C-alpha cells in the first residue's frame, strides 16, 4: 500500500500502531500541543473509551482536559458548541455513530451553521469522532453507517480514514481545521492491522483521496471498512486478468473529485463500494460526480455494491448485509462485460 508523506513537522521516529492506537496518538499529540483542545464524551475518562481510543489521556492531562460527561449527546454537542465559540477546540466522542441521532439537531442547526449565521463572528472548530459500521457483532443500532446524513449537511466536513497513518494525520488536520469535522472511525478497522505511524505532529490533507493501487480496467471507489473488501476484490480481479484502480476517498465531504475523474477517464468503468444503504447513499454522489466530469468516457453503467435498503440487521445476518469481495467481484465482471 502506497503511503504519501504529507508531513508538516518531520517526526522523530515511527511506531507500529493499530488504527485506534493512531487515534490515541493523534489525540495525545494535540492535547500536548494545544491547551485549547479538550476531549469530551461518555466514558472517555478513566475507562479510556469503550474502544480505548482515549486510553491514558485523562491520567496524563487531567479531568479538565479529558472530561467524562453525562449520557446526553445533545448536551455533549450543545455544550461543546458553547465552548467552541468561547475559545476551545472540543474533540467530542460519540460512543457509536448510531447514537449520534439525539445530537442531530445541534449538529444540523448549529454546529454546521454558526459560521454562516454570524458571518464568521462565531465559529465552531469542533471535531466529532464516532466509531461506525457493522461487522463486529454488536447489538443493533451500534452498526449504522450514516455518513450520507452528514455529507448532505452544509457546513460540516466528513472524514473517514482506513489506515492508521491516515487516521492520525487526518485527525490532527481535523482538529486544526477552523470548521467542524465529523470524524468516522471504522470499528472493524480499529485493530485489523498495524502500520508505521510517525511520532509527533503531521497532517493528511482533508479533501484528498488516495490511490491505493493502479489498474487500467476498472475504478473501485470506496473508504473506511470497505477498503480491504475492495482490495481483496481487486486481487481476485487481477488473477482473472482485470486491473483495478482502487481509490480510498478518505474524505467524504468534500469528495476528491479529481482523483475520481482522472481514474474513470482512464478506465471508463467504475464500481462504488459502501456499507450504507444504497438509496440515498454516498454512492449516488459519486455517480453524479462521474456524470458531471466523465460522461463521455464511460463504457458501462456504474455499479454500486452497498448495503441494502434495510436497517443494518441484527448481527446474525450482518455478514449478508455487508458488501463482500465476491459481490464486488460480480460487479467488476458486470462493468467489464457490459
Amino acid at each position, binding site marked *: 500500500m502506497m503511503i504519501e508523506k504529507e508531513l508538516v513537522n518531520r517526526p522523530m521516529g515511527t511506531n507500529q500502531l493499530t488504527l485506534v492506537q493512531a487515534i490515541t496518538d493523534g489525540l495525545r499529540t494535540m492535547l500536548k500541543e494545544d491547551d485549547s483542545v479538550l476531549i469530551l464524551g*461518555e466514558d472517555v475518562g*478513566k*475507562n479510556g473509551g469503550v474502544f480505548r481510543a482515549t486510553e491514558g489521556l485523562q491520567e496524563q492531562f487531567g479531568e479538565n482536559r479529558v472530561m467524562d460527561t453525562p449520557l446526553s449527546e*445533545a448536551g455533549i454537542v450543545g455544550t461543546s458548541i458553547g465552548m467552541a465559540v468561547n475559545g476551545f477546540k472540543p474533540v467530542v466522542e460519540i460512543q457509536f455513530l448510531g447514537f449520534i441521532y439525539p445530537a442531530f439537531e445541534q449538529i444540523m442547526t448549529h454546529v454546521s451553521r454558526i459560521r454562516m449565521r454570524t458571518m464568521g463572528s462565531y465559529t465552531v472548530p469542533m471535531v466529532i469522532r464516532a466509531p461506525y459500521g457493522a461487522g463486529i457483532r454488536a447489538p443493533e443500532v451500534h452498526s449504522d453507517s450514516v455518513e450520507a446524513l452528514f455529507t448532505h449537511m452544509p457546513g460540516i466536513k466528513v472524514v473517514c480514514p482506513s489506515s492508521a497513518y491516515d487516521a492520525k494525520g487526518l485527525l490532527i488536520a481535523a482538529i486544526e481545521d477552523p470548521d467542524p469535522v465529523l470524524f468516522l472511525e471504522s470499528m472493524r478497522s480499529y485493530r485489523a492491522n498495524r502500520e508505521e505511524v510517525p511520532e509527533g505532529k503531521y497532517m493528511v490533507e482533508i479533501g484528498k483521496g488516495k490511490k491505493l493501487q493502479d489498474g487500467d480496467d476498472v475504478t473501485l471507489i470506496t473508504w473506511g471498512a470497505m477498503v480491504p473488501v475492495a482490495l481483496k476484490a481487486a486481487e481476485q480481479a487481477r488473477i482473472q486478468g482485470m486491473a483495478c484502480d482502487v481509490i480510498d476517498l478518505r474524505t467524504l465531504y468534500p469528495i476528491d473529485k479529481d482523483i475520481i475523474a482522472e481514474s474513470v477517464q482512464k478506465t471508463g468503468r467504475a464500481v462504488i463500494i459502501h456499507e450504507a444503504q444504497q438509496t440515498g447513499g454516498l454512492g449516488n454522489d459519486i455517480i453524479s460526480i462521474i456524470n458531471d466530469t466523465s460522461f463521455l468516457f464511460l463504457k458501462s453503467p456504474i455499479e454500486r455494491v452497498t448495503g441494502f435498503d434495510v436497517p443494518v440487521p*441484527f448481527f446474525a445476518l450482518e455478514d449478508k448485509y455487508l458488501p463482500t469481495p465476491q459481490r464486488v467481484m460480480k460487479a467488476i465482471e458486470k462493468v467489464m462485460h457490459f
Partner: protein
Amino acid sequence: MTVEFPILQIVDENGQLVNEQYRDQMTKELVKEFYYNILRIRTFDRKAVSLQRQGRLGTYAPFEGQEASQAGSAMALDKDDWIFPTYRDHGATLTFGAGMTRTLLYWNGRVEGNVPEEGKRIFPPAVPIATQIPHAAGAAMAEKRKGTNNAVIAYFGDGATSEGDFHEGLNFASVFQAPVVFFNQNNRFAISVPIEKQMNSGTIAQKALAYDMPGVRIDGNDIFAVYFQVLEALNRARNGLGPTLIEAVTWRYGAHTTSDDPAKYRDQSESETIRKTQDPLLRIERYMKSNNLWDKEWIKKITEEITTEVEQAVRGMEQFPKPNVNDLFDNVFEKPTWTIAEQKEQYLQFTRREA
C-alpha cells in the same frame, strides 16, 4: 434531597421486617415466588455470561445484583400490562413471561429474539438510551384513551435520566396523566460513569418534582419494597392518578456488558462487599430463615427445575433454525418497496450462483 427522599425498605439487610405496612400481604406463597423468581433470573444471567465466555453467545449485559428490582417490579404487573425494557432488563421480561429461548436468541444477534410471546405486551429492549420512555408514555396514553384498566412500566438506568427523552417522556406522561410507572434502576454507574458525574442531584426520585409527579426512592435490593411500591404506583395509574417515578437503588456486581472491564473504573472489591451485605437473594433467604419459610427440599427442587429450564432454553437457542436471509428484506415494510425487492432478488440470485 436525600432527606426528602429516604430509601424505603420493608425488609432490611438482615432479613428483618422493618415496615409493617404490608405484613398481611406478605404471604408464604408470595415470598416463595419472590425467591423463585430471583433465583430463576440469576441462574439465567449466570448461564448467559458463561455462554458468552464460551463463545456461544454474543456480547451480553448481565444484571446480577439487580434481580430484586427486576423480578419484584415485573411481578407487580397484570398480564395485560405493557413492559418497555432496556438491554439489561431480561430479568424483568423473563419474570413477566418472555420466552427464555428467545431471550438468548436476542443476545445471539437473532431478530427472532424480539418476537414477544403470544399475547404478551413486551416491547423489544431499547438500545438507544432513554428512547423507550416516551414509548411507554404513549402506550399508556393509548390505554387511557381506550378506557382499559391496563398500565405500563418503563425500565431505565441512572444514566438514562440525562437524556432529553427521559424529560420529554415524563413531561408527556404527566401532562396527559398517563397510566405509567417509570421504574429507574439506579445501579450507580452508566458504564464507567458514576452517578456523581451523571448528575448533581442527590437522588433520581426528586426529578419527579419537576413534573408534579409522585417520586419514590426504594431499596432496589429489597424485593418487598420493590414489589409493593410498584404495585401501589400501578394502582394509582389504573385509578387515573397518573404516572409515578420510582428510583430503585441497586448495584450490578459485574461488568456493564461482557465487553467491559469494570476494574478499569471502579474497585470491584466494593461489589464483593455489597454482595455479602446487600444481595437480593441472600436477603430473602435471611427473611425466609427468620420466618420459618426456609424449606431445603423446596429449594433443591426449584433449583433443579430452573436448571433444567435454563438448559432447555440453551438447547432451544442452539437448535433454533439458522438465520433466514429473507428476514433481512421481508420485514422492513409490510410490502417491500421495489428497491428492497430488487436487491433481494439480485442477492438471492447471486448467492444461488455462488453456491
